[in-house]
């Protein structure tokens, strides 16, 4: 399945090259398509190279969390469905899927991009629940960035359904989900002591560590997650922060 061995990937990177001839700070071709699922209140498909992620936003009504009685609820879930990779098994989300969902969740939540107070229907009792479901359809690396981009793209198009006689009227809408920022997650990988972005599957196989940094429109950081075995020095983290802000700005143009 892998087109290049770990050693070959590392050797190329040592020489300043990548197997698909990209620069270290270059994404593969990215395409964003919105409103792809009519039944969902919001949806988007993002392709980064061959990686293919579909996100659907479904709205439901439920109780708020006790500590935020006047705010709607955000729930992010990720499914690594078996169609996407021979390494994905059917069944409940594993730690990889859970971590990915939580990274995407934190970028959205910590940026406060959804005005959750506007999603309160009755304080303490009834609020809108925003369910962001990430469905990975094809895995060729960098699923975190693809998922985060698809999630915010889907949220930007999402509508609030009509609510009548204690029931959701599907297909009829009362307005849009209030979005006031566009957080973008950029994952920087460390392979053979070099930093690079948008790893493909072969590169991920050779990965030492990764760091995902979500930034907002004001170019502030709103969430960070380091993952993978391996470490980052202070200097590497600073370089990664600069890179995430620069690339975040470029990616934001694709969904705005």
């Amino acid at each position, binding site marked *: 399945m892998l087109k290049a061995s770990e050693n070959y990937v590392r050797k190329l990177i040592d020489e300043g090259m990548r197997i698909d001839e990209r620069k270290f700070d270059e994404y593969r071709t990215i395409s964003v398509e919105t409103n792809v699922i009519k039944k969902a209140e919001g949806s988007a498909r993002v392709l980064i190279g061959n990686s293919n992620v579909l996100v659907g936003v479904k709205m439901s009504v439920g109780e708020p969390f*006790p*500590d935020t009685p006047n705010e709607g609820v955000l729930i992010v879930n990720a499914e690594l469905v078996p169609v996407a990779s021979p390494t994905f098994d059917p069944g409940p989300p594993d*730690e990889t899927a*859970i*971590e990915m*969902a*939580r990274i995407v969740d*934190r970028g959205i939540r*910590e*940026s*406060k991009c959804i005005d959750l107070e506007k999603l309160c229907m009755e304080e303490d009792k009834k609020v809108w629940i925003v369910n962001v479901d990430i469905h990975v359809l094809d895995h060729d690396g960098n699923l975190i960035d693809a998922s985060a981009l698809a999630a915010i793209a889907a949220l930007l198009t999402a509508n609030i359904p009509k609510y009548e006689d204690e029931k959701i009227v599907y297909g009829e809408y009362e307005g849009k989900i209030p979005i006031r920022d566009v957080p973008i997650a950029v994952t920087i990988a460390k392979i053979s002591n070099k930093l690079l972005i948008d790893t493909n599957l072969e590169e991920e196989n050779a990965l030492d560590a990764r*760091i995902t940094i979500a930034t*907002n429109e004001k*170019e*502030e*950081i*709103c*969430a*960070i*997650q*380091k*993952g*993978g*075995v*391996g*470490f*980052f*020095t*202070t*200097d590497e*983290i*600073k370089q990664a*922060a*600069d890179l995430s*802000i620069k690339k975040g700005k470029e990616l934001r143009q694709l969904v705005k």
Partner: protein
Amino acid sequence: MGKKAKMIINGKRLDGRSLEDFRPITVEVGVLKSAEGSAVFKFGDTYALAAVYGPRTMHPRHLQDPQRAILRCRYSMAPFSTNERVRPGVNRRSVEISKVLNEALSNVVFFEDYPKTGIDVFVEILQADASTRCAGLNAAALALVEAGVPIKDLISSCSVGKVDGEIVLDIGGDEDEFGEVDMATATIGNEDKFVLLQVDGIITKEDFFKLLDLARKGCAEIYERQKNAFKEKYKAGEIDVES
């Protein structure tokens, strides 16, 4: 519970600490009889207990690696550890934390020394008052040493953050809930090698860099405390190391 009007007054925090002070730290190694290695690490009211079992034959067998040991890590919060009871069992948060703790510890274990075996690290948070993953990681590193698992160095962990606009060390209590930014970090010993880094909250790049510098200092201090715990326990002549 409402937001506290002010959490830092004249450079003092709610519990009287200065900006770059830890809460009182308690470190103890070898606290359990059954486990091969165990340790307690406390930041104030945050109370973490870690136990290590193994290296032992890996079960189920198909998970064995003929070349190296497998590290498994489980982080769990006791039901009574927080104001609102924690439902026992795994949840998404604990799965994620277990994963990042495992990845952090994996930097220092000599896996090749014990092929086909499993090393189990269990972290129990008995009381939670913020920075639980940091306390748990510090305890886990100590428990690995106590178990005799060969490691390159300790993992030393602390939290930093931004509260009331100030950069602070060791987020505790209300600072977690009402502060602006919370960052969990860990380094290999006192080296400039971050093996854990998680940030929540909006922060400028400049302030983030300040947090990184403070985290380095904090982890270095934790490293000294961890080493001292062993020195205390194994003072020459005071304890029979062989027993």
